[in-house]
């Protein structure tokens, strides 16, 4: 490498990493979920600032062989001896000859807990960008960026060797680091009277409830109908893909396949059992909840596309029919931002596959925004306005809004609808959060390595969402959004890059959807009237 000062700088950066990681413990901070979890509480008792891995690095994972591959470790040792040992010491204890002159002192790779918590992406980012990245530059880090001087393979090699110095003999995976337990994550709740898990599950498929509005959207808003067919495929194909692989290239291929499917404007809904044959049989209890709530979704679109004169009454009827079934999702506003977003696997999909994740969130934005357009007039008026909304949505598909850090909420995309029909708005937000919980489980094979483990995790979370668990006893009351807590958009204000309302899109005041999303504040108006 290139001079003593760079070596010192490298040491300082790695030390910063150590400080970051040792400040707190997340479920497994060297998984992709960790940095974002850290961001939720950015400053720890020790005063270390935890930075979120930038989007361009977030989906990176080390080639699985590097951790135990002898030639790779040998190459990593050679790099380490040449570049790192002067600060970190021969055995990685942070006691190299130059360490005494550095403040803060270089990290010790013998800190088992710290090393275990560093994600692949975080580690690679820090070595690549060094102290030039914030917040480390502001802290005075002189760490050079090694992205121009070490090849990708060499960077993984030295990271693997540093990992080996901690004493971990195996792969850098959660199963190799049982010491990791996250104090600020919460385990999946134990069964509270709604236990699933038996092998015998009834199918219970239901036809869409009958009414004069039935199937109206297909005839009245055919373009939108086809978009929804594409979205159905998108959810199923994603889930099945994640069951089989976490390989970024294969997952990206699936994302592009979904885009092609959506842009083909499919006339016929996909058969989700054929798109995702394993997924739908892994947890049919969950599939039934998804199916029944999607039927409710489509029934409401049909209703608002129809000429039904008393839509309020029809809405109440459809809502009652929906909630009457055991698979129904609760209309209570649940605590999406905290209680449901702090499981050990939470945020994993967002952080590891940000483009794919925000592509899915774009589906959810469309599904919300459509409702406010439907309140603006009859089918003819909707046909005039809907192409603008769909074009905005297509912008999100072409360039997923990776700046969004949380899913679009119904009161953001459809504030008018959410105000008039708060139960449906809450149900659909809960539905979309359930999708996120589910995807997070699928991208953590380290936590849930077997099909039975995945199924158990899914069935531990599912009851939280079910309406029948939120009766008078309300056994999952601790998952409700608190009056002052949460940021779910139900009358709350959210900041950061947030999606626009349908009205903003129609008025031309929304930020362009195919460009980086700017910071803005959105105010939900979904308070119950």
């Amino acid at each position, binding site marked *: 490498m290139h001079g003593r000062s760079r070596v010192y700088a490298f040491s300082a950066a790695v030390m910063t990493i150590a400080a970051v990681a040792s400040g707190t413990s997340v479920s497994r901070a060297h998984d992709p979920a960790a940095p974002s979890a850290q961001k939720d509480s950015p400053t720890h008792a020790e005063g270390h600032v935890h930075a979120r891995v930038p989007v361009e690095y977030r989906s990176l994972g080390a080639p699985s062989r590097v951790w135990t591959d002898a030639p790779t470790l040998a190459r990593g040792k050679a790099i380490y001896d040449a570049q790192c040992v002067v600060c970190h010491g021969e055995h990685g204890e942070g006691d190299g000859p130059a360490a005494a002159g550095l403040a803060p002192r270089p990290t010790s790779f013998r800190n088992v807990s710290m090393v275990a918590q560093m994600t692949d992406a975080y580690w690679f980012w820090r070595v690549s960008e060094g102290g030039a990245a914030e917040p480390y530059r502001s802290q005075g880090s002189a760490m050079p960026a090694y992205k121009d001087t070490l090849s990708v393979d060499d960077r993984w090699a030295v990271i693997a060797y540093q990992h080996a110095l901690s004493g971990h003999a195996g792969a850098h995976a959660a199963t190799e680091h049982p010491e990791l337990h996250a104090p600020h994550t919460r385990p999946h709740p134990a069964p509270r009277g709604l236990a699933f898990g038996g092998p015998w599950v*009834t*199918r219970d498929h239901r*036809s869409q409830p009958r009414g004069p509005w039935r199937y109206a959207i*297909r005839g009245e808003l055919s373009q939108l109908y086809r978009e929804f067919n594409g979205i159905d495929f998108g959810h199923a194909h994603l889930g099945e893909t994640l069951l089989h692989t976490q390989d970024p290239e294969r997952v990206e291929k699936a994302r592009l396949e979904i885009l092609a499917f959506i842009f083909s404007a499919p006339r*016929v809904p996909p058969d989700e059992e054929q798109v*995702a044959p394993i997924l739908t049989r*892994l947890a049919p209890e969950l599939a039934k909840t998804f199916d029944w709530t999607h039927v409710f979704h489509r029934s409401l679109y049909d209703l608002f596309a129809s000429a039904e004169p008393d839509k309020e009454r029809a809405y109440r009827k459809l809502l009652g029919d929906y909630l009457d079934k055991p698979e129904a999702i609760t209309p209570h506003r649940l605590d999406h931002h905290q209680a449901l977003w702090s499981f050990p696997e939470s945020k994993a999909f967002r952080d590891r596959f940000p483009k794919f994740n925000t592509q899915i969130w774009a589906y959810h934005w469309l599904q919300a925004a459509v409702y406010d357009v439907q309140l603006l007039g009859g089918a003819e008026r909707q046909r005039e306005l809907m192409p603008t909304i769909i074009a905005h949505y297509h912008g999100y598909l072409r360039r997923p809004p990776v700046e969004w850090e949380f899913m679009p909420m119904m009161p953001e995309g459809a504030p008018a609808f959410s105000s008039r029909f708060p139960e449906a708005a809450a149900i659909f937000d809960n539905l979309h959060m359930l999708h996120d919980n589910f995807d997070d489980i699928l991208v953590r094979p380290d936590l849930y390595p077997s099909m039975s483990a995945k199924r158990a995790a899914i069935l531990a979370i599912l009851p939280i969402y079910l309406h029948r668990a939120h009766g008078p006893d309300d056994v999952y009351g601790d998952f409700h959004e608190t009056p002052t807590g949460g940021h779910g958009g139900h009358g709350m204000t959210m900041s950061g890059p947030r999606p626009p309302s349908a009205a903003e899109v129609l008025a031309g005041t929304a930020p362009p959807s195919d460009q980086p999303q700017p910071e803005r504040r959105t105010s939900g108006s979904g308070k119950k009237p």
Partner: protein
Amino acid sequence: MNAVTAPVLVALLLLLPVSASAIDHTNLDEGRPVRVEDAYAIPTGEIAVETGAGVTLRHHGGNRGFFPIEFWYGALANFQIGIGTTLSTNPHEIEEPPKAGDVRIGALYNLNQETLSMPAFGMRVDVEVPTGVDSKGVDIAVKGIVTKSFERLTLHLNAGYEFVTASGRDERDGRYTLAIGGSYPLGAPLFTRATLVGDVFAEQSLRRRDSTTVGAELGGRYQLTPRMVWDVGVGTEFAGPGDRSTFSFTTGLSFGF
């Protein structure tokens, strides 16, 4: 009803308006286009109409056209009831039940959803009422159905027994039926509108002197619209009595309402 009315019914059904929400082209029903069926009922509240036309070329005896029509209703959760009949040309030449014009009243109950470890099970009961040409006696058929998938390949086992209440001399008062088949979605996951389906089957002959009929069928189901499935199939009976079918062809449509 007679043989003329069936094509008219088919034509009328083709003119019916179709609507959204997919009727399932992977949900196999007997005769559309092969005899093996899956263990699942149609969704609760759904009405389905299945109809078609076909021709069978016989090893000995005259060739025959046939025109089935069936109505199903998802009456309860996982439970469907239905009524149907099959009309035929040369109805007097049909020796074994069901006879042309017999009314069939049926019910299918699905016990469970298939999971990764557990197959789906279904039970079906049909009562054949002797309303057809030269028909006599009520026949009752019971059938057990098992469906098990391996990724996208789904296998189906249908095993049944048919009780015949008006059997003649030298005839059995019942017979077994067995069909084993498979279905596979062509082009999945990116394309899921077509299903290839095939089976092999055995049906004991009612006439004691006749051997068991053994045959095979192959066909496809294609999702024309969200509420309409088109099917087409061919089959042959390569063992059995002299009047067995050497080749059969059928095509039909299924509608969901």
